[in-house]
């Protein structure tokens, strides 16, 4: 039973990645692209956690934690660059 749930979660996060990629390519405004990149980071964290469950290793939580932190910092940096024209003033 858990294998089918794992495959469903893999498919859901994978299709979510495709949707965010479409919005990154298409997005009419740079705020849309930043939002799509942020969602892409969240989907990548979900894929990592589901993969960690499927091969029964706990190492992937550290990777997911690091990706969450780097994704947050990069989103804030992009928005600061659009808002102020500079990241660290």
């Amino acid at each position, binding site marked *: *039973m858990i294998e089918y749930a794992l495959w469903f979660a893999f498919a859901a996060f994978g299709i979510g990645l495709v949707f965010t990629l479409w919005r990154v390519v298409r997005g009419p405004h740079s705020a849309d692209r930043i939002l799509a990149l942020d969602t892409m980071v969240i989907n990548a964290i979900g894929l990592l956690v589901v993969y960690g469950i499927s091969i029964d290793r706990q190492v992937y939580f550290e990777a997911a*934690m690091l990706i969450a932190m780097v994704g947050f910092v990069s989103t804030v940096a992009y928005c600061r660059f659009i808002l102020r024209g500079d990241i660290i003033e």
Partner: protein
Amino acid sequence: MDWDIELIGEILVSAFLVIGGLFALVGSFGLVRLRDCMQRLHAPTKATTLGIGGVLIASMIHFGMSGEQISFHELLITVFLFLTAPLTANFIAKAYLVYRVEESDLPPTTGKYGWAIYHDPPKDPADL
């Protein structure tokens, strides 16, 4: 049919995986489907964060059943994402406002300084 603890854990893990995957899929689909940038801001920041929460609860239960002690560092990722999702949404909304909304369309700030996205912050701390 005996309801042993492993079967209940497996059902719980599967249920949380399916719920988390569904919420993440709905959030990512809203990013494609909705029309305006301000509408699009709603879908990923709420639904996708909830989907990640479901998947992380599933992994907590899974490793708690198989391992020796229950681990709580999945909760760290959940707390971190729940803390940072409103911040990123606020920043993205500000970045949208800078380019798409004129300052004259916004209500006055009833202070000496205008909106923070159009003007520099006050240099004097007494003006804050």
